[in-house]
């Protein structure tokens, strides 16, 4: 590009500017990485070490803390619950979302716009504001303290953006492909399944990350609907754990590391997908 910020061949003023800006950005990088690094090494320290030598390294490396938190404090259950809830919710978001997108983008009919608007109505509405009626509905359905309640709400949370992104994508697929398949004897479901879905794969990857990350991280709905310790997801479990061990910092940092590191590991291997997926709603 014409005005690239390169040191080579730049005047002194520009060099100083580049240097200053890089310094600012580097400070933010350190502000991100050091607290995470400190969190992990604190998990290996004793409480006394954390308080007396906050920047020092642990005297010995042992995984006792991790074992305690993972097995005795039930993080294995929290983790499994988060996987289950996120997995099932995402499965239905993708299935119902792609079906809905197909239904609004591949047919012409009068109620088309209405159906599309109904799906999209949830995109701007803050679902948290509806917690009271949601609570009443979930109670009527007899699903309080059941993981099904949060799964259903997560599906509802994910559908609007999924229909929005996928229908935009499906509109671009030429109709001729559909005609050809129809001549070969495919019915509508087979066209959806065999022609349209495979061609929508890149967009599916996008909406998966776009929705799975917020669902995995969600705290509010599991907090309201899941009370039994054995059904809690990771964020709610972490919160319970913090309430119980407020003064044992060594254990708290271990819990935090367990909650944060898996996401970080996934990101290291798939950063491009994560960046593209999570900004999908804001970038066309």
């Amino acid at each position: 590009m014409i005005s690239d910020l390169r040191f080579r061949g730049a005047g002194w003023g520009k060099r100083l500017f580049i240097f200053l800006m890089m310094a600012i950005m580097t400070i933010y990088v350190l502000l991100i990485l050091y607290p995470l690094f400190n969190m992990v090494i604190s998990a290996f320290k004793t409480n006394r070490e954390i308080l007396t030598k906050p920047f020092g390294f642990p005297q010995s490396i042992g995984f006792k803390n991790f074992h305690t938190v993972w097995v005795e404090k039930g993080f294995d259950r929290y983790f499994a619950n988060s996987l289950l809830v996120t997995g099932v919710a995402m499965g239905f978001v993708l299935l119902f979302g792609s079906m809905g997108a197909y239904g609004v983008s591949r047919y012409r009919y009068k109620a088309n716009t209405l159906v599309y608007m109904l799906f999209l109505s949830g995109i701007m509405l803050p679902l948290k504001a509806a917690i009271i009626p949601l609570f009443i509905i979930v109670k009527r359905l007899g699903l309080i303290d059941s993981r099904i309640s949060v799964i259903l709400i997560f599906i509802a949370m994910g559908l609007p953006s999924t229909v929005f992104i996928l229908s935009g994508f499906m509109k671009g697929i030429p109709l001729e492909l559909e005609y050809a398949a129809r001549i070969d004897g495919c019915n509508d479901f087979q066209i959806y399944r065999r022609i349209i879905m495979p061609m929508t794969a890149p967009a599916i990857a996008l909406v998966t990350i776009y929705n799975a990350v917020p669902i995995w991280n969600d705290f509010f709905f599991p907090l309201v609907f899941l009370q039994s310790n054995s059904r809690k997801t990771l964020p709610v479990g972490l919160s319970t754990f913090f309430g119980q061990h407020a003064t044992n910092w060594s254990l708290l940092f271990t819990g935090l590391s367990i909650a944060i590191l898996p996401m970080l590991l996934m990101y290291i291997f798939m950063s491009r997908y994560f960046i593209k997926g999570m900004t999908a709603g804001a970038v066309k």
Partner: protein
Amino acid sequence: MDVKQLRKAAWIIFFVTPGLMIVGVFILLPLFMSLYNSLFSWNQLLPVEFVGLENFSRLFTKYPYQQRFLNALQNNLIWFLSTMVLQNSVGLLFGYLMSRSIPGYQAFKRIFFIPVLFSIIAVGFLWGLYLKPSGLVNNFLGLVGLESLQHAWLGEERFATMAIIMVNIWRWVGFPSLVFLAAIDNVPTECLEAAHLDGVGEWKLFWKIVFPLIIPSITIITVLTVIGSLNVFEQIYTMTGLDGGPNYSTDTIGTLFYRTAFGSVDAGSPEIGIGSAIGVVIYILTFLISLISIRFSRSREVQL
């Protein structure tokens, strides 16, 4: 209607019904129920009688609701303004610098996005520990000889809200940065080159050409900031608690709403009527402010 059309209608119904049912029951129905519920007085989970707009008038005029509500609303406004000024302008700067391929921008891009992925809960608890009087932040200030700046960051009324906002900005700056980066990268190069050949400087190039062309993404970020600011809850819950302490100084609509719905404003039983009224106010505010932002930017939008 002939058979062919009937069959088509059946297929459409087959495809859209499962999704529409879930959206209907868990998004649209609650919206109307909130509006409806806010017009009744409640005893626990049972509506007692129709009271019209009394819940709203109590919320806006009666103690303690009025005080708590206005206090919380003011904090949400502080959240919105601070986030716009501090986070989104830094995001715009970072996005711009990365689009101009500042040395190391590939690494910056990836690292900036790391905290965006973490749950607010984990981030809130982590920084809650670091901001304790004996936590890492004060230890660092002591290390560099700035003992005079050590504070109980979350325990003093004058710092607590700003401290929590800074943590949230720490987590989220990468998001607007990368959205703006993508937007600036979309500005056609010919445009910039032509202006550059005409001798237009970097500063002017940005404000006169790049900025007007990325207004759509500025609108999106603004709307997301509005929604985010009105939805602040987890940040307060993890760092200063449900009561928005100390002395309600960090209280927000989100935490007030939760206390009203599930255990009352000043200790007591849930108040569904007032809670629904707050819910309706959140809906209306989100809708209105988003609409204004979109209108405002439409009027300034430039197309090539």
